């Protein structure tokens, strides 16, 4: 797509406004944390694909930061959701 870079930037700005709004209006709960983590993953993947340019590179190089992002956000999510004894 011709304007994919601009669309990626627009999505990054939109998701950042969304994240800030959650914090600003104090609507952080279990549901919105899941959405926040999901949008953070999408934001990271946009940077990896369109800014770092790894979308047009062999899969291995793209998978390393994508897996990193997934694992880090998964552990953050688990530490948030798992009950504390």
């Amino acid at each position: 797509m011709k304007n994919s870079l601009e669309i990626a930037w627009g999505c990054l700005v939109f998701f950042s406004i969304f994240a800030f709004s959650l914090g600003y209006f104090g609507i952080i709960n279990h549901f919105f944390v899941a959405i926040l983590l999901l949008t953070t993953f999408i934001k990271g993947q946009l940077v990896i694909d369109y800014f770092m340019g790894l979308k047009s590179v062999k899969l291995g190089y793209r998978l390393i930061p994508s897996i990193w992002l997934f694992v880090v956000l998964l552990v953050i999510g688990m530490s948030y959701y798992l009950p504390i004894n």
Partner: protein
Amino acid sequence: MPQTLQAKSPYPVGDFAIWIIIYVELITFGLLFIGYAIARRSDVALFNTSQLSLNQGIGFVNTLILITSSYFIVKAVQSIKKMPDNQHIHANQKASRWLLGAMLLGMLFLILKTVEFSAIFDAGINLSTNTFFMFYLLLTMFHFMHVLLGLVILGNIYQKSKHHGYTKEDHTGMETGASYWHLVDLLWIVLFPLIYIIH
């Protein structure tokens, strides 16, 4: 038959060494992010209370700044990569303007972060105050240093583009610096919701 699918490049753009650095940095910051998330479980109330003294507005503006500066960097690289024939000087001038914009945004990030740090230190908070602020200061100051290094790298690239030093065939140095700057952006994208928003 025309080839409709573009072949994937075997290696990422820029010098290969930068990608080793990028992957090592990702692991280092990843461990710190995970450390923060796990440490938070030991005293959720303390983390939530301490988090209230952070300025979410500055964190948000800094997110927009880094995202936009990263976009400017991509535009700078594209100016060189997609330059028309015999437009070498014009393409370098264009790239240097994008780079200057990115550097100014990077400097603004550092200024805002310094304002935030000043407020924190004025309130008598330091690394020993509690576990939350230990992680907050460690993560954000470590990231701050990466932005500072990124600006030094961008400054060098800017100088070279000002002297029309990049060509369509030879711009690996610019792509190397750009990749490092995107790493700084990627790290902040995880850091912002983790430290400022989730509670």
